[in-house]
């Protein structure tokens, strides 16, 4: 069953351009059907994994480590669940939104690339082979470069090009890392590597390999000093793509990092043998503060959200590198929650552009009087970003902080709280301008059209929902860690 998770998007990406020759409108429907179908299958298999434990699929029937396998366990089932969900929302959003942003002649090709991107990130999440991971990283990246380059402004080209350069460096670093580890062990299968590596932990080869793997993924993840590609890429790409990338792109890299750290290597190696944990806690803290600070300095709404993403990525890596149960759980929940809220925020930002052509925060004056409902969604998602209680963001931060306290990293607490305040300020700035700003001209209500409003509504309402009904993410992430750490 799990093989269809990647095959369906792949097939639909082939189908979109072909059917697109007949009728342009088919692109959307094929993509939508693909998204729904994949999402259903993922729900089904996640449930199965949750009940019966991990599921493996040997490609071509060749048993690992000789062949390539798919593994679906607690961890990646959560990740693909959220990815597929975000993708579904983005597809729903795309129809109306792309009408203004993409030439309709190329729409079926555009959907084709979108499906390829979907294929790529699902492939990254589900594969059990590290070289295969590289291949899928490249599929996802190539399509992401293209999607970004389809932005309306010419800056999008430069954004895409910069992402391409840095992304390729990252991917090649991953390739080098794989090479070193492969050289030390002779194997490429993750489960097999986990068995072979412990005896080699003191080998310089393995350490270098580890360094390059993580470094490459950090580049893809846009951890603070390596983040330069991200803001422009998110800002200048089409609205749908900003939301899609913000919800899925860095998340899947974060997943890959967790996989490498805890499923290929072991926690013992990460914490005790090399100072990975310490270095990355430090880097994450810087990322958290700098991301929020830089977000504060932005004039462009989407860019502000993008910088805020950098801060939020810091939370995720912080939880990962604290390397204890609560923190990692918090990290996984934060991947889940941040996808929801950032996608919601980008949907809404795209909606402002669609309806009013607004890009800068200053131009949002009085928009709350024109679009009160839309703005209330923005408040919900924004407060969730801040981490106000009863929103999803609170839970993940809670877990991360508890993890930090357990590991006696007290410095984490003020940093996280400071960044919460900073994010409160930059969200509040938007709200204040939109509620109290003097708008010029008419103020009659015009909400977003339903196709744009609906996905934004779903994702922001879920921010509240998962802030109160926390059982699902907590339980799923707990199961994920149980399997990951083997107890």
């Amino acid at each position, binding site marked *: 069953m799990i093989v269809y998770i990647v095959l369906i998007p792949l097939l639909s990406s082939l189908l979109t351009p072909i059917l697109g020759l007949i009728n342009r409108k088919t692109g959307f429907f094929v993509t939508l059907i693909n998204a729904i179908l994949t999402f259903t299958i993922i729900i089904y298999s996640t449930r199965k994994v949750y009940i019966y434990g991990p599921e493996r699929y040997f490609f071509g029937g060749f048993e690992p480590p000789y062949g390539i396998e798919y593994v679906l366990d607690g961890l990646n089932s959560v990740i693909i669940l959220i990815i597929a969900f975000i993708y579904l929302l983005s597809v729903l959003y795309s129809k109306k939104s792309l009408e203004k942003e993409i030439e309709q002649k190329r729409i079926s090709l555009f959907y084709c690339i979108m499906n390829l991107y979907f294929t790529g990130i699902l492939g990254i999440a589900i594969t059990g082979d590290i070289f295969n991971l590289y291949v899928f990283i490249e599929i996802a990246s190539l399509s992401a470069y293209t999607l970004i380059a389809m932005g309306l402004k010419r800056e999008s080209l430069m954004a895409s090009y910069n992402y391409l350069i840095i992304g390729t460096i990252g991917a090649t670093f991953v390739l080098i890392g794989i090479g070193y580890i492969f050289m030390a062990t002779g194997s490429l299968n993750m489960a097999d590597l986990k068995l072979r590596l412990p005896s080699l932990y003191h080998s310089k080869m393995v350490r270098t390999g580890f360094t390059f793997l993580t470094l490459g993924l950090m580049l893809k993840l846009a951890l603070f000093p390596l983040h330069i590609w991200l803001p422009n890429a998110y800002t200048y790409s089409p609205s749908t793509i900003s939301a899609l990338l913000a919800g899925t792109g860095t998340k899947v890299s974060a997943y890959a990092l967790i996989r490498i750290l805890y499923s290929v290597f072991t926690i013992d190696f990460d914490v005790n043998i090399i100072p990975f944990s310490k270095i990355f806690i430090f880097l994450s803290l810087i990322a958290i503060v700098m991301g929020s600070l830089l977000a504060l300095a932005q004039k462009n709404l989407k860019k502000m959200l993008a910088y805020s993403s950098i801060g939020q990525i810091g939370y995720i890596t912080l939880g990962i590198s604290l390397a204890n149960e609560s923190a990692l759980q918090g990290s996984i929940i934060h991947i889940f929650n941040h996808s929801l809220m950032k996608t919601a925020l980008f949907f809404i930002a795209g909606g402002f552009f669609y309806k009013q052509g607004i890009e800068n925060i200053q131009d949002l004056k009085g928009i709350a009087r024109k679009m009160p409902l839309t703005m209330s969604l923005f408040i919900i998602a924004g*407060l969730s970003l801040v981490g*106000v*209680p*009863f929103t999803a963001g*609170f*839970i993940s931060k*809670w*877990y991360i*902080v*508890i993890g930090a*306290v*357990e590991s006696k990293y*007290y410095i984490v*607490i*003020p940093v996280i*709280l*400071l960044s*919460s*305040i900073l994010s*409160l300020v930059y969200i*509040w700035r938007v709200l*204040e301008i939109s*509620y*109290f700003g003097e708008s010029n001209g008419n103020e009659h209500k015009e909400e977003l059209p339903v196709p744009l409003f609906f996905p934004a509504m779903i994702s922001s309402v879920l921010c509240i929902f998962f802030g*109160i*009904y*926390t*059982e699902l993410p*907590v339980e799923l992430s707990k199961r994920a860690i149980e399997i990951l750490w083997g107890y």
Partner: protein
Amino acid sequence: MEYIKEFLIILVPLSGLICSLLIYIFRNEKYFKEVISVISSFCMFVFSLLVGREVISGNFLSYELFNLSPTLSIYFKADRPAVLFALVASFLWIITNFYSIEYLKGTKDKKETSFYCYFALTLFATTALAFSGNIVTTFIFYELITIFTYPLVTHKGTKEAVSAGRKYLAYLMGLSILFFLTALFLTYGITESLNFQEKGLFASYENKKLLILILFLYFFGIAKTAVIPIHHWLPTAMIAPTPVSALLHAVAVVKAGVFTLFRVLNYVFTPEIILKINGHFLLIAISSATIIIASLIALKQDNLKLRLAYSTISQLSYVVLGFSLLNKISTLAGLSHIIMHAFGKITLFFCAGAIYVQTHKTEVSQLSGIGKRMPFTMFAFAIGSLSMIGIPGFGGFVSKFLLFKGISDFGNYWLFFVLGLSTLLNASYFLPIVYKAFFEEPEKTEGHRKNLESLFLLIPVLVTALISVLLFFACSYIYDFIGDVRS
């Protein structure tokens, strides 16, 4: 029946929440919001009474709403101080409702819906805070109070209101996130429990320095107590409509602050532990400094509401002082001063509002001879002032007397001097107003109408003034009810 009893405790805050929902849904019906507000306030009061009856008869009422995580739950519990606080808040809400009807009409306010809606929401959060059974629940509702009162502070929508709102948020939310939340995390990290307990949470914890740090984090995190370095938000919040200033910034919000402090000092820490770590000296110093300094500032204020605001700051510190003296009598004094001050100060605010509605006067210097045109209002004002000063025969005397007794139990006699001086200052900033109102001649340019009082504005004022007097004679009932707080 048992089930209903369990649910009773939820019903108190719920009546506020449902009220606001109904108001929002039927926002276009005329007179509906006023009626529903009054009904819900009665409901809230009745439910509080019922909870009080259960508590008196010795039943333990508690209700766990849901779990945010296995160790993190939204949990409500009823005890005597909580009931007391809920009773005061809900009773004054009833009166404020009647008052606001006329006030909003008098000031020709257009945003009635949002006013009533957020008002009810604030009461919901306040009563929920009163019944909170653990720190997390307290923190959450503490934050919610801030969020719900923000729209009331910025109600006017002017530039000043917006910047006042910004300050309001910066102080209340910023400090609570930075300090309160840190303290909460540290508490959890040390004790792995957040439930309020009679024997405190730190019974078996030895690290004195960390405990002191946590205590101060709590103290400065709870900015709603408005002690001197963190009091600036309260005067700026006076830009809100007078009913808001009256109920929220003299009763609900600030009292929520001191109530939270009460919880922290008595149920997270215990007096014994605080005495052991010598944490109380700073608390006493700050609160007594606040008592004096705020009174001095009040003396200089010409704006009536601002003078009342600084008086509030000074009076709140009586409560804080009572709590930080850490003996039974002084704690009792603090709790009873919550009530006494509530009734006295709300009377004063109501008067200020009535004066503004009728004559559009805001400054003390303009009030010459106002007593001739609004005799009953100013009569009530006099009663409120006397109660605030602490003249025997008025409610304020009782708590002040107890505070004196608490100080003598504590044994630090220079505090007598603080109280004495403050009483003098109280008299010197309240009595001139009364004198001006009754014994000075009005300016000649005034209009010809003789009596400016309107019944709807007058009745609430008289009721609260009357109760201020009655409280003096009924004080023994209150003590019986509160009983031994730490039994």
